């Protein structure tokens, strides 16, 4: 392995280290992605070992979409899994979307058995791409339930959890196209 270890100091630019994710997550169909950013190959530094290079681009006529989530309900979580010598990660995205409008119901209907891709932005603006050319993000369930709630003071809406299995964790530094790709 050619990577070189370095000291890892407390590194909080401007003292910032706020938790949570932003109030939007970005999603699309895995099959609609034209090109994926590349994972590090023989990286020399620790930072390079966690950095994706390039942009996610979509096929002609396709785009990424945004989904509003209630503040402080979104979470991006990295779970370590596997046996000794077979360790890897499962990335989890949890969120709550308010209301039971047809759009969110239709999204869950369409998404529950589909291969998807998500881009999650944390409170510092760092982005995580859930999906690669080999593996999609998939729906796992509703950790905080779906429905009207019992009391009038309850919060009506849809919660959801999506996961993505990956050998390594990376930061995405590319763009997110919210406009249709063209053929040219």
């Amino acid at each position, binding site marked *: 392995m050619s990577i070189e270890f370095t000291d890892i100091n407390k590194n909080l630019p401007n003292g910032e280290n706020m938790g949570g994710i932003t109030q939007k997550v970005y999603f699309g169909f895995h099959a609609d992605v034209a090109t994926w950013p590349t994972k590090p190959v023989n990286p020399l530094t620790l930072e390079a070992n966690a950095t994706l290079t390039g*942009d996610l681009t979509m096929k002609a006529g396709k785009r990424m979409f945004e989904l509003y989530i209630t503040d402080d309900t979104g979470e991006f979580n990295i779970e370590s899994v596997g046996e000794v010598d077979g360790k890897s990660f499962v990335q989890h995205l949890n969120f709550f979307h308010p209301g039971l409008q047809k759009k969110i119901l239709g999204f869950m209907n369409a998404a529950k058995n589909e291969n998807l891709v998500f881009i999650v932005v944390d409170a510092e603006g760092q*982005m995580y791409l859930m999906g690669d050319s080999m593996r999609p993000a998939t729906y796992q369930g509703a950790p905080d339930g779906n429905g009207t709630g019992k009391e009038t003071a309850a919060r009506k809406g849809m919660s959801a959890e999506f996961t993505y299995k990956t050998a390594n964790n990376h930061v995405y*530094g590319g*763009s*997110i*196209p*919210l*406009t249709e*790709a063209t053929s*040219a």
Partner: protein
Amino acid sequence: MWTKYFKIVKIRRGRVVTPSHGEIDFSRDDISIEICKELFEDDFPYLEITEEGKRELYGIEPPTDLVEPAPENVHIETVEPKDPPPNRKKYAKKKKP
């Protein structure tokens, strides 16, 4: 206006979330040229520089045709320009460590 110096390619003019400047709506005409230039130099995939942009922002004049006009009925082979098109990294500002 930024569209004199850059044009959108590979997508329709519209919204893109950029890593350095958040969401930008490229259907608007009032985007800062400096932002476009910065994105272009950071290899943003959806901006292409125009000839006017090369000239105004980087001082690159378009290649002039040095071949004298050929007499009529004489075939002459096309001459490729010696200099390749501008490389983004070549003109990029050095980033602070």
